């Protein structure tokens, strides 16, 4: 028995000893490295001209290709590889992809598509590929619509590509309502105009007889609310985009000045400022009628209200502390809490559709800025700086802002600009003439 025990002991020891190397080895595992530094640059993509399935689709195929490419380029997140650099020629929508040819020109994303016309309607199909992974990014999609709606179909394709690569919703199939301006600086004529987000398809919703200000889209994009001097003093009006018939909000009619309107997130109510006896406060009223509800009550100017996406809170500007600052309060009323803590004056706050940021205008040291801050006032970040930047509005994906920039001097003119919330990709929006006070619609599809 003794020898047996000793043998067992030896075997156990041997087992333990041989196990040790295994444990030590398990600690090695795969090579692990941490990458903390990358690059921030546009992602190169290739988009060969969409294939026209028939002769009637040739022009539309070319136009759609051009708009899709422009949408993606315009974000600043993508860089188009010119078609002259392409090695492969896509002649069939279903042909296998020659990934090596696209890798050779460093195309990281490839968009191919085809367009077919039938009976005055267009069918647009597209596929997106991750070139270096050698596989499609999502499934192919097709859109069908009237020929005159080709731009929206192109925007829809771009939205899909944008969303699949970035993970955020696109904002190409959207519209912007703004104030179109004409004439000298001391005698400006202003009209409410509507355009695609990229400045195309401009439509004028009002004439220039009456001064109009601050148009705002409803959450569903089918109505616009704005301030007009039609009655001789500022007053809130609402208009259905479908019939372009303006009508004053009767519930607000009171003989007092009303201005700075905005829809609540559910679209059922409107908040606005009303001046009474030299004091302005914020009120809320149902679109369908009913009595006004006073939300603020202070001997100071409270204006520019904007709701959080869930409708639980409201942000506005007030000079109750002596200077123009930004405050947040419960939507149903309550004690306002100041969130802007920096130097200078803050105004025109707008809550992000994603709920994570509040955009604002800041005036400091003779210059204006568009900035964003967290909803508690932290992480303030100024995105622009100029003689006059003001009135930010959010893209529906909460990543891009549009605002008004006006140049200095007697010849100074307003224009609409856009900027990424990172502060990059500042660019002017193509508008037919002077433009100001933009308001971004939700996505139309």
């Amino acid at each position, binding site marked *: 028995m003794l020898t*047996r025990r000793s*043998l*067992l002991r*030896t*075997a*156990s020891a*041997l*087992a*333990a*000893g*041989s*196990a040790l*190397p*295994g444990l030590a*080895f*398990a600690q*090695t*595992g*795969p*090579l*692990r*490295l*941490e*990458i*903390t*530094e*990358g*690059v*921030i*640059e*546009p*992602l190169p993509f290739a988009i060969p001209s969409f294939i026209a399935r028939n002769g009637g689709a040739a022009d539309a195929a070319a136009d759609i290709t051009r708009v899709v490419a422009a949408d993606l380029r315009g974000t600043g*997140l*993508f860089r188009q590889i010119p078609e002259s650099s392409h090695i492969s020629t896509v002649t069939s929508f279903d042909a296998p992809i020659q990934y090596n040819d696209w*890798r050779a020109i*460093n195309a*990281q994303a490839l968009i191919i598509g085809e367009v077919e016309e039938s009976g005055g309607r267009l069918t647009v199909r597209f596929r997106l590929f*991750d070139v*270096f*992974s*050698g596989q499609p*990014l999502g499934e192919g999609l097709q859109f069908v619509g009237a020929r005159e709606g080709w731009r929206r179909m192109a925007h829809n394709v771009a939205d899909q590509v944008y969303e699949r*690569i*970035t*993970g*955020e919703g696109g904002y190409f199939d959207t519209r912007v309502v703004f104030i179109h301006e004409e004439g000298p600086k001391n005698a400006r004529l202003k009209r409410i105009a509507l355009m695609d987000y990229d400045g195309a398809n401009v439509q004028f919703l009002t004439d220039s007889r009456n001064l109009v200000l601050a148009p705002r889209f409803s959450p569903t994009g089918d109505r616009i609310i704005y301030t007009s001097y039609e009655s001789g003093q500022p007053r809130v009006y609402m208009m259905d985009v479908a019939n372009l018939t303006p009508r004053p909000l009767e519930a607000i009619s009171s003989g007092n000045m009303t201005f700075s309107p905005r829809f609540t997130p559910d679209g059922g109510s409107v908040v606005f400022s009303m001046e009474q006896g030299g004091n302005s406060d914020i009120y809320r009223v149902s679109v369908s009628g009913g009595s006004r509800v006073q939300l603020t009550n202070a001997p100071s100017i409270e204006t520019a209200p904007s709701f959080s996406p869930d409708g639980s809170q409201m942000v506005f500007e007030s000079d109750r502390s002596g200077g123009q600052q930004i405050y947040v309060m419960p939507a149903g009323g309550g004690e306002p809490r100041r969130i802007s803590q920096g130097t200078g004056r803050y105004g025109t706050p707008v809550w992000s559709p994603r709920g*994570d940021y509040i955009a604002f205008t800041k005036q400091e040291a003779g210059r204006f800025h568009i900035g964003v801050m967290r909803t508690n006032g932290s*992480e303030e*970040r100024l995105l622009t700086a100029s003689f006059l930047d003001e009135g930010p509005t959010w893209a529906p994906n909460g*990543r891009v802002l549009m605002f008004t920039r006006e140049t200095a001097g007697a010849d100074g003119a307003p224009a609409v600009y856009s900027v990424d*919330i*990172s502060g990059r990709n500042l660019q002017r929006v193509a508008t037919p003439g002077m433009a100001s006070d933009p308001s971004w619609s939700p996505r139309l599809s």
Partner: protein
Amino acid sequence: MRRSLYASTAIHAALLLWVAIGDAFSRDTVTPEFQVTGVTIMSTAEFEAMTAGVEPTPVAIETAPAPRPQPAPEPEPEPAPEPEPEPEPEPPQPQPEPEPPTPPAEVTDTIAPPAPPSGAPDLPPDDRPTARPADRVAPLPAPAPEEDVEIAPEVVQDLTEPAPAETVTEAEPETAPEEATTEIVTEAETPSGGPLGPAASVRPTARPNRPDPVETAAEAPTPTPTPDPAPAATPDPTPEPAADPLADAIASAVAEAVSEPAPPAQPSGPPLSNAARDGFRVAVSSCWNVGSLSTEAQGTTVVVGFDMDRGGRPVEGSLNLVSYDGGSQSAAQQAYEAARRAILRCGANGYGLPAESYDHWRQVELIFNPEGMRLR
């Protein structure tokens, strides 16, 4: 009478104390010198302990305690505890006589020269010549010398200044490692002198066959493969496990041991240098474009695992999202795709990693942490 007796004893005691103290004072300067030689003495004591197993300590006690034992009837309890721990090692030594003899023999050989002063008379090295037991004793003698070093100083006094002492001290450290190595080698009898792990790898394969026949035997009586019970014609492949439970137990222990290290193979070649790691990291970084990611994806850390071929190129089909942190699943997917593009794009022509270290970078996990790059 008693008074005279007491006076006599007091005088004698005082005389003895004076003699003892006087000696001590007179040799103060000498003691430190002999501390070194004490080491050698202790080694001889070990021999005594190993052989007679009675008193290695007495060597140190012999001189100093000599005068004290008389006034120290009290100290009796003190010596008691000392011998107690000693006897413990003693009994085992005599019992496993075959075991201790082997290493001590070698140790004694090397230490023998310095030992002569005290060890020579006590120990019969000639009796010990038992060269046969030189198997495993090596590890035990090593700790012993340290204790002896402390005790030695006084004992050394008698030894005076033998030159060999110095040589002895040098010999000890040298001999100890040699003994250890030689014995370790003997343990490796079964396997060849190669690597440790793979030695017993053959056993495990035979082991798993055992349970199968047992299960089948319970259901169907026909199981021929059972090695133990049925020495029929088929059992040839497993001759050893015939009917030896001890061998089975050993085999199972060995099988368990071998089965664990089997999956991971020890990476061969030199580990990846820091420069190579940095180069790899920079190469991937240069292709990691987070500009097109959503703000949420820019706050999502993803861990991407993949295999590499020997040319330093990532294997496309092996890329996978190991884990993610800080964002939703969709954000993680976007972040993963950006990371995947980076890995594949910059690795298309290989990352230029040293081929000799291939085992160290054959499998890779890259942690893409955009924390420092995202918006504040």
